[in-house]
Structure formats: structure tokens, C-alpha cells
């Protein structure tokens, strides 16, 4: 709920408006990505975070700028919520020179060192140990920075989930695991992931991933624990109203129906119920639209990279060494 002060599941009106603006930015970014994909401007596959905006937004709202995150193949929301520039992200989706990865990564490999996004990952569960390693680096340096490792419920059937959970518990790593359960991969019974986490030694909590205020409260507790070397899992149960990916086939607009909840609409309704909330929501809508308009203009005006740049960034620059690893 929205209240004058925030804590234990409450946020102030100002904070709620900020959360709404970020969620709306993510929603518009994904609609724009889908639109550009339909127009043939996005050359590769795109996995939309539509319907999961509240998770990344709630989590990042309690992170510090020097905390870092590791994302998945469905990572636009994680990147935006951590502060990544929408224009450089969109340019990367379009394969342009000004993209975060200079057109070498695309949607599934977005990385943004400037905001602590170590990388998205095209391989299910492969980012988990990388997040653990970054957390081990923090621990070894005795900093109180933490790392957030995102994964989906599909990752739970990979061995890396179990290996990494065990090690992060044993080694007391400053990491917060966020599982976005969208129930598309498995039909796990409620609580299965929590039980697995706890059996590996990591206390876990389930939240409604369509309620950003709940996500934020759970993430806040988990982040505080992680800063003292106690890893935690938050399982955010979400819905994904879109197909797995935009790729080759027709892309349908997201459909929120049945028991699925639109997290953006949900917070909008909550805002409107509070005095002055409607005006704040309208202002946030305009701000989000402006960010995305600028991003589209920036991305579309960015040139394609020089084809020869495909031969760069494979090794450290060493005089006399060619791409292909030959001297």
C-alpha cells in the first residue's frame, strides 16, 4: 500500500510515483522493441519482460549504484531498472554502433558496466556462478557491495542452480538471488523452489511479483542480509503475457487475461486511489514516454558499425596479434 512513510510493505507517494515511472518506462521500452521488431529493424530474437516489470523495479529500488547485477536472456527490465541508458540499449537491439556492446551482443547479451550490469546471458542458469564469483570478489575485498543474480524458474532444472546455491550458502556470499517464476517452463507446485533453496542453505521468501511494493519490501530485507554475507532468495511469482521470444514468427501484443495481473495497471490503480496520485501518474507517464522517444531517436540515428570492427574485442590488444589468435 501507499502511505506517507515507507517500510514493511509501504511506500511514500513520491516513491510510488518513481516506481511507476520506471515500470512504465520498461513497458514502453518493450512495446517499442516489439514494434521495431515487427518493422524488421531488430535483426535477432528479443525476449520481452512485459508483465515482469515490478520485479526488476522493486529490486533495483533498494540497490546502491555500486551494487551489481547479472541478468538472463530476458533482461531489458533488469538493465533499465539498474539505470542503463534506454537509447544505448535500443541501439544494441538494432545492432548499431552506439549500442552498449557496439552491436556485438544484441538483446540477449546486454551488458552495461557503467551501471553494474555484468551481463545478460543466452544460456539458462549460466549467469548464476558469474554472479556468485562477483560476490566472492566483494567478500574477498571486504566491501559491503552486493550482487543480484536474476534467473527464471526454468533455471532450477539446471545443475548450475544447485551447485551455485550450495556454494553461495557455504561460502557466505553477499548475493541476492531473484527467481522470476513465470510458470512457463515447469508446472512446479507452489513452494518447490523455496524448498530447494532452503535445502541448499539459503532462506527464501515468495512474493507476488506483480506487486512492486511487495517486491521492494522483500528485496530490501534480502539485500540487508546479503550485505552481511547471508545470501537470500526472493521468488517473485509473475506472469508473462507474451510469447517466449520475438523471433521469426508473428509477434502478438501482450494479453493480460484470466488470473494474470498487469503490474503497471495495478500500481496505476493504487496511485489513482491516493490524493494527488493521478497527477503524479500522468507526469510519470509523460516522463517515461519522453525517455523512450529520445531512445528511439538516438538508436535509429546511430549508424551500423564498421564491418571491420567485427574483428576487434576478441583478445586484449597486443601488438602483432591478429584476430583468430595468430601472431
Amino acid at each position, binding site marked *: 500500500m501507499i502511505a506517507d512513510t515507507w517500510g514493511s510493505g509501504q511506500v511514500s507517494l513520491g516513491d510510488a510515483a518513481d516506481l511507476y515511472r520506471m515500470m512504465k518506462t520498461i513497458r514502453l521500452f518493450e512495446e517499442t522493441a516489439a514494434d521495431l521488431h515487427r518493422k524488421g529493424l531488430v535483426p535477432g530474437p528479443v525476449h520481452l519482460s512485459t508483465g515482469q516489470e515490478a520485479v526488476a523495479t522493486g529490486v533495483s529500488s533498494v540497490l546502491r549504484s555500486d551494487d551489481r547485477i547479472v541478468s538472463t536472456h530476458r533482461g531489458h527490465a533488469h538493465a533499465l531498472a539498474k539505470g542503463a541508458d534506454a537509447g544505448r540499449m535500443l541501439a544494441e537491439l538494432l545492432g548499431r554502433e552506439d549500442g552498449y556492446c557496439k552491436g556485438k551482443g544484441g538483446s540477449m*547479451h546486454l551488458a552495461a558496466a557503467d551501471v553494474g550490469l*555484468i551481463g545478460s546471458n543466452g544460456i539458462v542458469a549460466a549467469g548464476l556462478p558469474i554472479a*556468485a*564469483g562477483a560476490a566472492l570478489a566483494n567478500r574477498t575485498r571486504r566491501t559491503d557491495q552486493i550482487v543480484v543474480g536474476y534467473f527464471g524458474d526454468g533455471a532450477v532444472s539446471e545443475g*548450475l542452480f544447485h551447485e551455485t546455491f550450495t556454494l553461495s550458502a557455504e561460502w557466505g556470499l553477499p548475493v541476492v538471488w531473484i527467481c522470476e517464476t513465470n510458470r512457463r517452463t515447469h508446472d512446479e507446485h507452489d513452494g518447490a523452489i523455496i524448498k530447494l533453496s532452503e535445502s541448499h542453505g539459503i532462506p527464501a521468501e515468495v512474493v507476488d511479483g506483480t506487486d512492486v511494493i511487495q517486491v521492494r519490501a522483500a528485496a530490501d530485507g534480502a539485500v540487508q542480509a546479503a550485505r552481511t554475507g547471508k545470501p537470500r532468495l526472493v521468488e517473485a511469482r509473475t506472469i508473462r503475457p507474451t510469447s517466449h521470444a520475438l523471433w521469426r514468427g508473428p509477434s502478438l501484443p501482450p494479453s493480460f487475461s484470466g488470473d494474470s495481473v498487469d503490474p503497471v495497471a495495478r500500481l496505476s490503480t493504487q496511485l489513482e486511489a491516493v490524493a494527488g496520485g493521478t497527477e503524479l501518474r500522468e507526469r510519470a507517464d509523460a516522463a517515461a514516454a519522453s525517455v523512450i522517444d529520445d531512445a528511439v531517436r538516438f538508436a535509429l540515428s546511430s549508424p551500423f558499425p564498421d564491418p571491420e570492427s567485427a574483428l576487434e*574485442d576478441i583478445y586484449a590488444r597486443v601488438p602483432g596479434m591478429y584476430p583468430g589468435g595468430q601472431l
Partner: protein
Amino acid sequence: MTTYGEAVTQAIEDELRTDSTVALLAPEIPVRFAEQFGSDRVRLTPASEAAVAGIALGMAVSGFRPVVSWSCATFAFVAFDQLVNQMAKIRYLSGGQFHAPLVVRLRYFGGARMAAQHTATTFAMYGQVPGLKVVAPATAEDAYGLMRAAIRDDDPVLFFEADSLRDQPRTTHSLSGAIGKALVLREGSEVSVIAMGAMVPAAVEVASRFEADTVEVVDLRSLAPLDLATIRASVKKTGRLVLVDESTPRCSFASELITSVVEDATIFPVLRTAPVRICSQDVVAPYSPPLEDHVRPSLDRIEAVLQAVLSSSSPSQEQGRDR
């Protein structure tokens, strides 16, 4: 430092002492390491190869220079995605925002009666992957120098440590210590023998059975990057090329080197005879000693091949060489 095996451990210890960002993740760690460097920087790892490789990568993108150590190179198969799809690619995929300065230490067995699942010389599997560097020291000096160079390198380096050379004593070879340079161990004018890793001492020993200045032996040292300049110069001089690689032959480094030499239009005409690969035979490594000894390159097999190669030459290509 007295032997090849001790040299590797010594190199890691010296780097740990020199650079506080160097870390070690290994299933076995000398007691003195934990006492000197603390259990955060030198960490015992369980049998979670994929997770440990990924953890090393996470440390590497966070300012550390980790060394992952496995007692058998085939354990890396369990971690294949993290090696060839994650650490190899992070610099490129991120457009240079991140890089992975780490070392994966892989001890490979041959002739140790370890049987199939612990016996494989897998240079080429990783040498084919853009983004990875692959080194295979053949001397105690190189075991030390290449490990230190690998730790200081800003790219992921797979360090292939020949178990069969573990007791090799120090030699007097001079070396650069640099990754990416091959070394001519013995000069000769009639045939170039390019050997790698565990096969280098065998090649040197067989070469000594021939007259002086006959067999040139080149220790490849680094497979990626590949020092084609040294190899091409040697083959241009001798006109004959023999590869000694303990790997099975298909798609091996021996194959790659033949291609790289033969496709060079300045070398092809000076070849006096067809290049030859001496590899393990194209089977899974067997257990029983007579079986394993039969499939690995032996000193006698290397010598027989060299004798055959030295006695053969194509007259038309001799003319080409004279031009």
C-alpha cells in the same frame, strides 16, 4: 623449483605473493598457501566444475586474476559452457566492457593408465574457440614462465600441464616466457619437427638419434595464439614438415598446422615431401599398457616416420625449392 610439476605450483605461489588480486580455486591446495594468503584468496572447491569456472569468471570481471585448477583436464568437459561460451566470449559480447583475466589449469594424462575418461589431449577443442588462449609447456622452465605469463595475461588462458612430464628436471633452455612464441629447441636443415606439450621431449630425444643439423625441433609452447612465423621460417629452411601431437589426429592442432603451412603460397612450392602427422591413433585411450602404448606416439614410431620422410622427396618440388 626442481621439476616441471613443482614449477607450476611455484609459479602460482609467486604470483599470489606478487599480486594481491591473484586467487586460486582448487580441489587441493598446499597447506602453506592458506597460511600465507588466507582462505579467501585460496579456496578449496568441491566437485562443482561448472560453478567453479563461472565463479572464477565472476571474480575476473570484478578485478581479480583467478586460477582454476583441476587435477584432470577431462573434468573441464563438465564446465564446457563456462569455458567456451562464457569466459571466451565475455570481452567480445560486451563490446570490450568486460574481460576475463583468468587461468584454467588442466593436467592431461597420457600413458598413465588412467583409461579413457581421464585420458585425452584436448588442445584443439579449446584452440578452436576465439577468445581463449591455449598454452602447453614442455619444460620445467616453461611450466613456470608460462604459468606466470598466463596469470598476468588479460584473456582467459587454458594451461595444459603434461602429467607425463611432472618429474622432468630443469633444463638449460633459454626462453622468452611470452605467450605466443614458439621456440626452436634444436636446429636442423633437413626436416622441421613441430612438437607440442608432452611430445616435445620425445621429439628432442628422437632428433638426437640423427646426425647433427638434420632434425630441427620446434616447441610450439602456445597453440593460441599460434606463432606461424617461426614455423613457416623453419619449414622454408628444411622443406619437410612433421607434427608430433599426442592428440587424436582428426581436427587436431597437427592438422591445423599442416593447413596453415601448406596454404602459404610461398611455402607450398618448397615442400620436398608431403607433411606427416604423428598423433595418437584415432581411438579412445585404452587402459591396458600394451594397448595404450600401441596407440600413443612412441619414440620408435617418431624415428621411423622421420627416416621415411628424410628419404623421400619430390624431384619437381626440389626444382621449385631451388628457385
